[in-house]
């Protein structure tokens, strides 16, 4: 006996290599269910109302009034002008698309690579993806001069015989963003089905039972259903992973296919994917650090999860740094005086030099702090860094879009760009939409994938001392 114990111990990896459990949650699966559905089933906490009311105000009052003002009055209510025909509209579009990326990446790619830690944060990140794609999609739709004709962007066979122009990257964008929205929504919703059924089964009122039941699509949890579910999930995650790359590549091509110095770069597709994932990880951290505390999920979303996201962020930050260096190298190596001008002026320019410094400082240099373990464990500091990363990535888009447009080829047409209050309020409105939807999601749906988390608890492992049907506490 003693011998066998020794043998077993010999199989255990050394301490520094030993992985802890995916979750420190030690109680039984029933308790886990209670715990994970507490937010969706319990009383609405005060913090939720404090956040929800302003967010809902922005979403329901500020954004609609800004859009009504914009559409009734004209794009001129924004700060766009003629050298800078794209301003905050496209900056925010690209920024929201970027935010959207981490969710799918975490859910789908980490699913494919069997990274089990993703289960704790996957659902929350996917929801973030869906809501931010919605915000992103809003901008191209309303930024056009004649919104009432925006449907001409879609290939609809009409008697006029008019057809979109497929050479235009904006056309590719329409497909990319819409596909991404559809697939990521489906992916998110599919993952929700077992948990919706769970909520249905636990519902105490008829309304809840009916509503959850409606969306649970008759899920019974039979083995056949699980079998199909797993297959479909695998397929969708494969699709979604591809889309992570295509959508941002195409957003990058919106710029790269142009003539403009500062846009005309083959590195852009890769650059935009990396930037998007980077920005998305930043947003994941911004959302999860407070939520795990307020929703009492510290034992599900553990510092180890945060640590891993930090490491991913660090990697993306390094890639950003590499790209920034490459951009400067190419600008110099091309010998183009226009490129030289644009890139010189990003850092030392007439107006927007701060954008360049913020972009390099925050996106490439600041994440280097994550090399330090203490930083990766200091949640408050991580939160601050994550917020800064989101701001830095916003400025990166600002620098790319405005910084390249305002001083282009002929100096006679150079003109700076100043945003207006409508630009700011519209952005605030989209932030309101995002947070409103996110808060509703947190309040009414399980923000942790219950079935998935259960699968990685020690209790779910038949070989674990606590696992199997025999042990564990209820």
């Amino acid at each position, binding site marked *: 006996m003693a011998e066998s114990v020794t043998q077993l111990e010999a199989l255990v990896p050394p301490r520094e290599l030993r992985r802890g459990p995916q979750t420190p949650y030690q109680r039984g699966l029933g308790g886990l269910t209670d715990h994970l559905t507490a937010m969706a089933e319990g009383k609405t906490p005060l913090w939720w109302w404090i956040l929800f009311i302003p967010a809902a105000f922005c979403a329901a009052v500020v954004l609609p009034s800004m859009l009504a003002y914009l559409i009734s*009055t004209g*794009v001129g209510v924004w700060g766009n002008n003629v050298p800078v*025909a794209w301003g905050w509209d496209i900056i925010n579009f690209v920024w929201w698309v970027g935010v959207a990326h981490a969710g799918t990446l975490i859910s789908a790619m980490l699913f494919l690579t069997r990274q089990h830690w993703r289960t704790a944060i996957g659902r929350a990140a996917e929801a973030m993806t869906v809501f931010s794609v919605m915000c992103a999609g809003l901008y191209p739709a309303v930024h056009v*001069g004649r919104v009432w004709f925006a449907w001409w*962007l879609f290939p609809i066979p009409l008697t006029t015989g008019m057809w979109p*122009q497929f*050479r235009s990257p904006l056309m590719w964008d329409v497909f990319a963003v819409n596909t991404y929205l559809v697939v990521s929504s489906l992916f998110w919703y599919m993952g929700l089905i077992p948990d919706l059924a769970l909520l249905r089964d636990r519902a105490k009122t008829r309304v809840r039972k009916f509503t959850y039941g409606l969306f649970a699509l008759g899920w019974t949890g039979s083995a056949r259903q699980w079998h199909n579910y797993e297959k479909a999930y695998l397929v969708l995650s494969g699709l979604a992973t591809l889309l992570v790359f295509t959508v941002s590549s195409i957003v990058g091509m919106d710029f790269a296919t142009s*003539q403009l110095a500062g846009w005309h770069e083959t590195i852009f597709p890769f650059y935009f994917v990396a930037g998007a994932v980077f920005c998305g990880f930043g947003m994941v951290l911004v959302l999860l650090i407070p939520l795990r505390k307020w929703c009492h999920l510290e034992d599900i979303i553990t510092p180890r999860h945060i640590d891993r996201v930090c490491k991913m962020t660090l990697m993306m930050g390094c890639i950003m740094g590499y790209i920034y260096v490459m951009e400067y190298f190419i600008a110099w190596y091309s010998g183009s005086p226009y490129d030289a001008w644009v890139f010189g002026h990003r850092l030392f320019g007439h107006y927007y030099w701060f954008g360049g410094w913020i972009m390099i400082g925050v996106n490439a240099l600041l994440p280097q702090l994550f090399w330090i373990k203490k930083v990766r464990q200091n949640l408050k500091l991580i939160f601050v860094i994550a917020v800064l990363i989101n701001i830095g990535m916003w400025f990166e888009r600002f620098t790319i879009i405005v910084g390249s447009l305002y001083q282009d080829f002929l100096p006679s047409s150079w003109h700076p760009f100043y945003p207006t209050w409508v630009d700011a309020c519209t952005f605030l409105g989209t932030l309101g939409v995002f947070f409103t939807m996110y808060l509703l999601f947190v309040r009414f749906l399980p923000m942790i994938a219950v079935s998935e988390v259960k699968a990685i608890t020690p209790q779910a492992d038949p070989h674990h001392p606590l696992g199997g049907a025999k042990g564990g506490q209820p």
Partner: protein
Amino acid sequence: MTGRRYWRSLDELSDTPEFKEWLHREFPQGASEFNDPVSRRHFVKIMSASFALAGLGLMASGCRRPEEELVPFSKAPEDGYNYGTPEYFATAMPTRTGAIPLVVKSYDGRPIKIEGNALYPGGNGSTDRYAQASILNLYDPDRAQRFTSGGKTVSRDEALKALDDLSKKFAANQGDGLAFLAESSTSPSRARLQKIIRQKFPKSQWFIYDAIDSGIHQRAATQAFGQPVRPIFHFDRASVILSLDCDFIGSEDGAHNHIAGFVKGRKPESNRMNRLYAVESLFTLTGLNADHRLRVAASLVGQVAAAIAARILNRPFTVPAGVDPKWISICASDLVANHKRTLVVAGQRQPMEVHLLAYAINSALGAIGGAVSLIPAPEMESKTYGQLAKYLDAGAVDTLVVLGGNPVYSVPGQMGWAKLQRKAKTIVRLGYYEDETFEISDWQFPAVHYLESWGDAVTSDGTLVPIQPLIQPLFGGLTELELLARVAGETQTNPYDIVRTTFASSAEAWKQFLFNGFLAAPAARPVNAVASAPEVKSASAPSARSLEVIFCRDAKMDDGRYANNGWMQELPDPITKMVWDNAVLISRKTAREFGLQNGEVVEITLNGRKVRGPIWVQPGMAEYSLGLALGYGRERAGRIGTGVGFNACKIFTGKHIETGATIRKTGETHVLACTQNHWSMEGRPAVRESNLDEFRKNPELAREMHEKEPPVVAPLYPNPLDQAEKKGLQQWGLVVDLTACVGCATCVVACQSENNIPIVGKDQVLRSREMHWMRIDRYYTANPARETEADSLLKDSEQQYERWIDDVQAVNQPMLCQMCEAAPCENVCPVNATMHDQEGLNVMVYNRCIGTRYCSNNCPYKVRRFNYLDFNKRPLADLKGPFYPTPLLHLTDGKWDLASWWKNPNTSSMRPEDEWDLLKMSKNPEVTVRQRGVMEKCTYCIQRIQRAEIAQKVKAGPSGNVRLKEAEGTIPKTACQQACPAQAIAFGDISDPDSTVSKWKGSSRNYAVLGDLLTKPRTTYLARIRNPNPAMPDYHEPYSTGEYEKHGGEFHAVEKGNS
């Protein structure tokens, strides 16, 4: 235009009341509304021109076609009147010392576009800015539209009766106490009426006043040569031109004629290329185009002139401090060397002695009879406001008749004209606006526009031209001639009859006169005379304590008469590129000395009178010199012009150059709007220049200034044009000759007029949303040795402190759609709204455009303009940020916009009805008025191309000869090309090797802007050749070339296929 007169029934012939009633009720739509004040709509009133058929004889119910016989110009349809076919009428726009012969296009009774009369022997079919913009004044909603007495509206009959009473009253006392204050005019009819008045009322007085005194050339010539003569300057005959502060290219009267002549003598490929020396203080268009420019205070120009005169006459001379004597002596030697082919001109703002000196030099060099010809001229009325003031002050004026002009605004401020004028017992005023003078008038008669009235005028070279109306007066109103005739108590008061009587020749000759638009008469015999050099009083140089002030004619406002003209307010000043403002122009050093920067409001004190205005640091200005443009600061101009800029007339004393001014900071600031913020070309070879001697050695020099091109690889997509081209009958192209272009900006206004381009207001210009399809880029180039690397890292607002701006060269570049064969705008449009046609045009489909604006981002020339805020439908007041009224909440004329839109989305607007109705009339029906949210740009005037192509197809019939050919004269002209006084634009078929445009493209000077981007533009440029004198101390290669090299530009041998 009245066709043959048919009657519809015998009832009509007998003109019975029953028939009138029937006509009234049945046929003309809206006729009954005329008499119903409640439902009468403004629009119906003024648009009646459009539905009153020619020959119907319904004048009483509002037909706006003139009754008298007009002779349409040659292009009129042969079989009567065709709707939708434009007609052309010859007329003329009177100016101060001449007239511009015009051919005006009229659509359905509405004048739409003004062109120069190409048949007129003294012109080349071009016009000036003012003529192009004047058509907008016709449709100005703020025009005087009523007869008033004491500010109250009276009926026309009452007002005319008052004139009759006036006439009777003065007939009794020989006109004692009757005074006229008129603007200068060349009208023979007015002169005739004036003579009649003088006979009838011998004691009446006649005064002339113009804030801009263009008559000085004639007065000076008369004085210099001792007989009444008028000088005509033939710039084309001169090889060396010396301008003594004479902005003959910019602000002098008849500038477009001067430009035509100047450019004619400036052909680098020929043996003759003239050389221009300019001595000036303000940086003017003349200085910009000069080969040598001497920057000197305007008050010292006389001494420079005296020095040059002395040098020519081999007398000892002194030069003012700071002027290089070598400059003077070599310039003088150049003049002497080219004697008989020289021309010295003095500016209208310079005092008499400088003019006399100029004539003396011309005389000494034998230029009289060569580049200057003198023709006999009637003596000019010399009495002006000064004498009138004395009469008024003495209470000797019973009735003052103010004919046009706006003396309360424009008479020098020291006179206190408002109070003086009030000393007359009765003030009768004929005015185009209810302006500042309206307030101090007892009777106001609305004046008519020259396109609404009969008249005549004499051009600056002495040719008689008719002024024929194209439309009946929109708001009633009188011409100057009619008013004078009525005051004179003449029985003949119809202006047509007055002009016809003055013309006094056969009906056939009259018809021919109207048809041609000028009287082909033998030119007046030039007079030969000699002038001697006068003594020049020595003037002291201006200093910080005693600054010099130059009052100049504004390139846009003139003397304030275009203040309510939106096109003019929004036209960038040719030099400063400023819009919607004037400023105190000052040199960098002087500004530094006073610690001033752009936009700071200063108070200028001159002779104890003060005015406040914002500072603008102008490169190339002389030190201690302040440039103030007249014509701004109108207090009562209308909805466009009121309160724009500051009124320099407040310190104006009648002398255009004065010293002794001081300035003081006020601590206030004023935001100035310019359409071009960046001054330097940053070494980019957008404008390529070369000196003549260099150009002769290496004609390819300009083309070699080509940025490195990327290697051509197989394109991802084949260019659709490659296939489409084969189907095109013509291949359109355009070339701008930068040697010829002087930057006068006539093309910009012509384009605005032709293509229905809206104005956007100052606030929108500050946001860089102006809509001009064509702009003129003006770059200052500097001695590369004086520029530092750090200069290019400064903000635009800090350019004013940079050292290099003191002595600059400047270049112009008209920038319009380049019609790239590989257009970057096309492949980024997601909805195919911009694409190529088979004739090489990059066409813009407004109906399809949804406004993603990517095309603008991807256009390297930034010639696409986006309608951000419904600029057509919004009044100016609603175009000021940060809160633009939304139609959801806006009321127009008391009606809710949203409700009007719901009723009829196509006609609702946010403009008040009067403004909106006139705006609609003023639009060119051949060009779409673009909605908001749509991208727009230059089309090479595709409407003109289409009209020409259709006409050719109709003409060709079965012969199949549908191709337009320059040799056959069927190639249309673009609006900019037609208006250009310098003939700097060639447009045509590049697939026809004999076309002008092909020949220009074959020139060694031809290059494509940003050709290194491989956009293959169809619009190309001919490099600018300067002709400086190698012997001069300030000889140097064009600064732009040095800048190019300094920024790392290299010269590449010209490859095939480039540009």
